């Protein structure tokens, strides 16, 4: 039992992106972006509730977000949102059996059929689209 506990890597093992290729990176980014978006969502609900304090309260809180730091955070949120969406659709399709390949006898070098080029392209597309969306967001926010 003690040995089992020692072999558990916990959060360190969960967030280690160095093993298992781009799929592991996608797994990590999916969770990080999910947590980030949840934090933003809770903040957004609080932010919008300041409208109940009237125009002065709303403008005061809005001023906090209309700064360079506020815009940078929003740009990161946009990137997280796009990555989470695109990669989420990829994961959903994978769970539904789309693009995971056909079952086959496991032969050396034991490459899983599900970790194929289609899903890798999906992950890279999610990262590229997130970067493009972030750039667009920055252009909109800083372009005014």
């Amino acid at each position, binding site marked *: 039992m003690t040995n089992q506990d020692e072999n558990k890597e*916990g*959060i360190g093992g*969960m967030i280690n992106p160095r093993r298992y290729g781009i799929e592991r990176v996608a797994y990590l980014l999916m*969770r990080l972006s*999910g*947590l980030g*978006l*949840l934090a933003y*969502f*809770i903040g957004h*609900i*609080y932010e*919008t*509730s300041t*409208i*109940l304090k*009237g*125009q002065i309260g*709303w*403008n005061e809180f*809005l001023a906090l977000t*209309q700064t360079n730091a506020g815009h940078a955070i929003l740009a990161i949120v946009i990137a997280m*949102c796009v990555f989470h*969406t695109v990669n*989420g659709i990829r994961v*959903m399709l994978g*769970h539904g059996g789309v693009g995971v390949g056909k079952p086959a006898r496991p032969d050396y070098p034991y490459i899983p059929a599900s970790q194929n080029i289609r899903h890798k392209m999906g992950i890279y597309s999610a990262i590229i689209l997130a970067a493009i969306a972030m750039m667009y967001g920055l252009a*909109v*926010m800083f372009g*005014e």
Partner: protein
Amino acid sequence: MRESIIMKIHYGTALAAVALVAVHILMRLTQGFAESLEYDSVITNYKFLPYAGMLEIILILLSIHGFNGLRVILLELKQGKTYEKAVSYGCVVAMIALIGYGTRTIIMVNTGMT
């Protein structure tokens, strides 16, 4: 509830939220980004009942999806009967609290209680 059903709800809320959040963001871009955030503009949005209804639906969908996602992450980290129950009930309570708080804002602004 079975985990397979929970995951179907997780995916269903995700797909529905993507569509509605896209509408929510496009509404910001129909005007200039800054103008759309002006007090009067936001109040007008809240008072438009179909839009307020859409905000309420987004609030519910994202709360369910977000807190179930958090629950899944926490259950991946550690297992155990007591821990799993605490995480599950904790996430449900947090979800209800967030929906309640957001709904309060929507109702109060929509009915002019500002």
